[in-house]
């Protein structure tokens, strides 16, 4: 994990470790295992990647997976944030919804796959639904606890300055105050949702998709291509996290700079 402010030599130490790992992997594959099916070497993987680059499949896979992910995370935001706000602000709604949420929440997202197929068929929405189930709870819970944790003095200061109605207090005080925690929830949700992607695409909702192709090449016993998709899934997840963090920190949470967060 990069914590920032690393010294020059520390950075090269990390690069060095990656090179060692790749060499070790290559040596194991070529000298010990000697079977591309069980352990493809980095060179095999690189070749498979270059082959895949020749077609347009990679781009389509990315697009389709982004659609699935976008549907799931989008729905999770649209549903999770308002419910989280309502439960965090109104005790009655909290008491009313909390038992239902606590019962549904522990069900693993993948256990919803049968109903995803029955309700939405073999469609992109079906995959999106599984991702939604994985993403909605971190967003909802973080929004809820963000609202619960607002210092009382902010609400009272707001009231004394003429911000009286609930909807104004939520809009001008509660929501911005809880935003760092909501953002953290979205980041967790995006990680969990991305992890659900492979399983969501496994049951044949589309001809493309990073997760779909992983299974496709597994069925063709092309394990070098499977590794290509594994690495792409990992790097894309990392990229999302990075973009998200950069964007949120620079556009919404500038006020937190200088504070120990």
């Amino acid at each position, binding site marked *: 994990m990069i914590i920032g402010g690393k010294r020059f030599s520390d950075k090269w130490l990390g690069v060095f470790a990656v090179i060692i790992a790749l060499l070790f992997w290559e040596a194991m594959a070529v000298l010990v295992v000697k079977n591309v099916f069980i352990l493809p070497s980095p060179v095999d993987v690189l070749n498979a990647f270059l082959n895949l680059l020749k077609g347009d499949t990679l781009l389509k896979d990315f697009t389709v997976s982004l659609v699935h992910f976008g549907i799931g995370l989008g729905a999770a935001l649209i549903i999770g944030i308002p419910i989280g706000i309502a439960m965090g602000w109104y005790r009655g709604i909290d008491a009313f919804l909390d038992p239902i949420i606590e019962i549904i929440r522990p069900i693993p997202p993948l256990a919803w796959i049968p109903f995803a197929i029955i309700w939405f068929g073999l469609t992109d929405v079906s995959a999106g639904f599984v991702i939604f189930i994985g993403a909605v709870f971190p967003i909802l819970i973080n929004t809820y606890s963000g609202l619960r944790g607002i*210092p009382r*003095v*902010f609400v*009272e*200061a*707001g*009231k*004394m*300055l*003429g*911000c*009286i109605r609930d909807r*104004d207090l939520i809009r*001008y*005080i509660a929501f*911005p*105050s809880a*935003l760092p925690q909501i953002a953290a929830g979205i980041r967790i949700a995006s990680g969990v949702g991305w992890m659900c992607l492979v399983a969501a695409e496994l049951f044949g909702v589309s001809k493309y998709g990073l997760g779909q192709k992983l299974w496709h090449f597994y069925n063709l016993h092309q394990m070098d291509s499977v590794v290509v998709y594994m690495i792409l899934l990992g790097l894309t997840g990392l990229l999302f996290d990075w973009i998200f963090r950069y964007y949120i920190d620079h556009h919404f949470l*500038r*006020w*937190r*700079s*200088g*504070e120990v967060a």
Partner: protein
Amino acid sequence: MGGLVIRDLTRSYVREDGSVLYAIEGINLDIFQEEFICVLGPSGCGKTTFLRTIAGLDNATSGKILLEGEEIRGPNPKVGIVFQEYSLFPWRKVIDNVAFGLEMQGIGREERYRRSQPYLDLVGLSQFSQSYPSELSGGMRQRVAVARALAIEPEILLMDEPFGALDAQTRNLLQKELLEIWQKTKKTIIFVTHSVDEAVYLADRLVVLTPRPGRVCEIVPIDLDRPRNRTSAEFAQVRRKVLDLIAQPKCILE
């Protein structure tokens, strides 16, 4: 403008076991316009409850508070408050904190900035208008909080130990600045503190509360000329008198 009449003000809470706890009991007080009142008392004497009731953040169990003849029943734009803890909205720039009350009144950005700026000037922080509160020191944050409370032009300014968390030097400086602001803006100020020194330095009249339940034990006019000198013999004399008064049995015993 800004006169306050308090009659038989009582605030009690019912504990879980059914017993009744009185925070303040039977407070009667007339506060004149443009007066600087300090409410002095030990911790837990109901000073804050008293102030919160005037603010309309807490409701009296019985009795009433009249501001220019109108009863206070909830937060009211004629009453501004500065809290003890840092209450600036950390997600808003300094200028947007000061302009918050005007924004709630639906006043456009340019107009509310134009009207907020003089209050930022008044507390000497114009050059920090684009900063976030996290970039300011504790003393600067409380100055902004004063500007924010004044920007909606209340008639009464309530202050709940606003300088309690500051170091002694900053506190003395802010007391001096507050008096200048008070003289310029002609607000009625009700200032809660547990520091005799602070109260004697600031107040026209000093209201001493008893420990829980808070009742008015003594009202002490401070006749020292302004600007007051903390190190003068007269100041020390008044300070000693107040210390003797608050040590009386009737001000200590429950």
